[in-house]
């Protein structure tokens, strides 16, 4: 019997959520304040969950490793947030948004979840607008929209290139209102170090106070993880440097299944690697592909400056290969196409590992002013880093690790396989299949937190109204705290020579080389050996300065890197197991004659959910069959 019960309601696609909501149990207002909920993370998923649960009257505790909720990495999302408003009258609809996401995810997501995400998208825009998010507007006072990769309508709401920041400031303001109201207590500068499970249910967490080093116990009737993705496993990525997988990984070790870990989005438009000291890659929003044209010289290793290369000697390879979508093909397709050109020797820049993104024609057509007002802050960012103005010289871009579609397996109620442990936003796996379309991540994590989780967690808590506050002096808390302290002691006692950052860099290179944009059996097997060796070296030669009873950033990093080794192995195992190509997961052994991803629906139309079986044991694979009742599986073509 499978461990996986997705709890997808029966009936027609359009009625599933409505029908399901009607059947969910309620908790009366007087009982809500007696129920505690822990939320980990304050990005759009965490802030939206926490503020809404507070508004409903629950007693909420929120944790973040940053000093303020407003710093969470949702802040860095640039281009926009999708919704099926059809404000542009271009025949958009909830169904089209759903279909674009299902197709964009290369038919590896659940129909019911994706449809629901599209269904609540409009409510999300209404709510952000009411909170004062300054979306771009037209002169008549209505909201403007633009188009994004992988679709043929304009459904993206945006605030210049800072949509994530503006949405997060809105979500943060709603959260602060609940903090003032006393329904939410904020615990900043805390790292989650483990989940406490009591009688099979998630009942609390162990945290480390990052300022004092104190190990703390916090209990609740339910725990929500909104801890984002694990793209920093590549070391260099577009993510914030402190983003990490540890919360999700601890949940996994405690029994939560991890789904499709190898589905990682490599974003096509990042500023390329410039030197060996580099600590991160800066994203240039996909929205730039609305006006920018991607090209490389037709002649390999062309020494001329880009502006000296005449039109007929430029290869606009996306427009050439994908005439229907051109520069607006989805991210996975654009990334692989860039890699293909660079590997073939046509890449530009000092390393040959970049392509041009050129605004010359758009400036000619629309004028410098219009282009500047659309992308001004992105151009400034680019110029600060590279020293060149994109208004004068084409940008140079290259793919970089970005978003993880994989994550904790959740059912239709967003609950993991540990009862009482929920996962929202990027930390779950549910809505993006094998590839996420641009501007759908802000949409999904906000929808989860504002309009889905509050209903489904209430259904779960309805059975818990007689359970008194969970005490933290019970053996389960004692044991988990002792384990956490033991591990910290172990990290501090190695006394080796190499820093956590150095190990992270080396792990990142293995992951990027063998489990990045392109994967094959030989490489993945090799990576598994290399990671294991490096992990052994880590536990023998790690150096952590300082002690556990102070602010110690080296200790924080060491714990996160230790978890990345374990997750890295699972990523490679999952990629090895999935012998088809789909979306962002490209197995060289499975491609069409023209080099596109070739799915194998007969054998791989499932969610791969991995179960932790203990230290040093092989994880067990559980399969959740993906049933497509409403869309027809077809080759995903953007030609």
């Amino acid at each position, binding site marked *: 019997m499978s461990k996986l019960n997705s709890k997808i309601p029966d009936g027609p696609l359009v009625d599933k959520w409505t029908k399901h909501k009607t059947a969910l149990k309620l908790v009366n207002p007087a009982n809500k304040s007696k129920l505690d909920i822990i939320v980990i993370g304050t990005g759009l998923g965490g802030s939206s969950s926490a503020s809404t649960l507070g508004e409903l009257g629950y007693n909420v505790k929120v944790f973040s490793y940053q000093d303020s909720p407003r*710093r969470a990495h949702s802040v860095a999302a640039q281009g926009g947030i999708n919704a099926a408003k059809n404000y542009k009258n271009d025949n958009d609809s909830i169904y089209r948004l759903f279909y674009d996401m299902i197709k964009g995810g290369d038919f590896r997501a659940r129909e019911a979840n994706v449809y629901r995400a599209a269904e609540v998208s409009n409510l999300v825009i209404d709510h952000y607008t009411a909170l004062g998010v300054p979306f771009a507007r037209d002169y008549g006072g209505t909201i403007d929209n633009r188009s994004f990769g992988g679709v043929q309508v304009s459904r993206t709401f945006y605030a210049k290139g800072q949509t994530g920041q503006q949405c997060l400031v809105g979500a943060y303001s*709603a959260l*602060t209102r609940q903090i003032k109201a006393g329904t939410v207590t904020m615990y900043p500068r805390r790292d989650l170090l483990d989940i406490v499970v009591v009688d099979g249910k998630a009942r609390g967490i162990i945290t480390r106070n990052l300022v004092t080093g104190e190990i703390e116990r916090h209990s609740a009737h339910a725990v929500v993880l909104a801890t984002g993705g694990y793209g920093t496993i590549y070391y260099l990525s577009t993510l914030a440097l402190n983003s990490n997988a540890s919360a999700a990984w601890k949940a996994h070790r405690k029994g939560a299944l991890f789904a499709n870990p190898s589905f990682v989005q490599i974003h096509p438009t990042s500023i390329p690697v410039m030197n060996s000291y580099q600590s991160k890659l800066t994203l240039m929003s996909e929205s730039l592909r609305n006006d920018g044209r991607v090209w490389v010289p037709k002649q390999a290793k062309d020494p001329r400056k880009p502006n000296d290369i005449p039109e007929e000697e430029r290869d606009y390879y996306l427009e050439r290969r994908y005439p229907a979508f051109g520069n607006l093909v989805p991210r996975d397709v654009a990334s692989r196409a860039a890699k293909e050109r660079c590997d073939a020797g046509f890449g530009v820049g000092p390393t040959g590992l970049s392509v041009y993104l050129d605004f010359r024609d758009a400036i000619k057509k629309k004028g410098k002013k219009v282009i500047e007002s659309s992308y001004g802050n992105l151009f400034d960012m680019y110029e600060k880093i590279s020293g060149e103005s994109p208004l004068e010289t084409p940008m140079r871009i290259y793919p970089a690790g970005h978003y993880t579609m994989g994550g904790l397996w959740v059912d239709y109620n967003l609950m993991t396989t540990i009862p009482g442990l929920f996962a929202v936003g990027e930390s779950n796996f549910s809505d993006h299949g094998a590839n996420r379309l641009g501007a759908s991540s802000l949409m999904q994590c906000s929808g989860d937190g504002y309009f889905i989780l509050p209903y489904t967690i209430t259904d779960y808590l309805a059975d818990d109204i007689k359970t008194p506050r969970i005490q933290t002096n019970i053996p389960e808390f004692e044991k988990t705290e002792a384990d956490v302290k033991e591990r910290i002691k172990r990290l501090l006692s190695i006394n080796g020579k190499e*820093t956590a950052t150095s190990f992270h860099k080396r792990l990142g290179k293995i992951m990027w080389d063998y489990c990045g944009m392109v994967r094959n059996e030989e490489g993945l097997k090799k990576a598994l050996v290399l990671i294991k060796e490096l992990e052994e070296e880590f536990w023998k030669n790690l150096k952590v300065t300082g002690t556990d009873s*102070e602010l110690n950033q080296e200790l924080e990093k060491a714990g996160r890197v230790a978890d990345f080794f374990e997750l890295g192995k699972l990523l490679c195992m999952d990629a090895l197991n999935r012998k088809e190509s789909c979306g962002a997961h490209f197995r060289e052994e499975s491609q069409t004659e023209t080099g596109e991803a070739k799915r194998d629906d007969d054998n791989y139309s499932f969610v791969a959910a991995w179960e932790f079986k203990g230290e040093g044991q092989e994880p067990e694979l559980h399969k959740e069959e993906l049933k497509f009742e409403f869309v027809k599986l077809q080759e995903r073509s953007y030609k």
Partner: protein
Amino acid sequence: MNIKLKIWRQPDAKSNGRFETYPLNDVSSDMSFLEMLDYLNNNLIKEGQQPVAFEHDCREGICGSCGMYISGRPHGPQHKTTTCELRMREFKDGDTITVEPWRASAFPVIKDLIVERSAFDKIMQSGGFISVNAGAAQDANSILVKKKNADEAFDSATCLGCGACVAACKNSSAMLFIAAKVTHLALFPQGQTEAELRVKTMVAKMDELGFGGCTNTRACEAECPKGISISNIAKLNREFFVAKLKE
């Protein structure tokens, strides 16, 4: 290039701090300022010393985590730039660079270059929001907003909450921070119903938390990494007086 760093070291909030000098060789001009500090820390760790603690996260100028005085200026010498966006090409061989945490009594030092900025969160909690619950909103296009207002509100709302304005101000005033929020919300129809209450409680909270008053030196505007204009403060004053007059 070879540089010399004078960095404020302070083990915790209770201890006294002092400047330590560190020579650093072979710094590449392509490095970001924080990558240069990473490089220094790597050397310090290898020598068995404690690395310099500093706050940072997104490293692309949007999260507001990083912030320090660099040679006497918040976020360093480059205009409209956060510390993480600053590049070593702004410095030259032989430079001595002084690095200190924000200096303001409302922002006590936690360790080395890290300060406690929760006072900003407390100000926000006092009224920096529009009171609407999830699910209560009307269709987004039923609230019409002049494009000019939306654009100006956006400019104000780009505030990172980094604290450079307070650090730059000789009075350690948080006026620009509050003004940016009050202006952002006052420009929208949906922010009107509680506008008067908002401005009064936010200003009162600022005073209570130990921030100073504004004497119009414009240092905040000059050092704000997002270039938030001091005209926001004029708008704040107007909102404040109107609210007081209506009492």
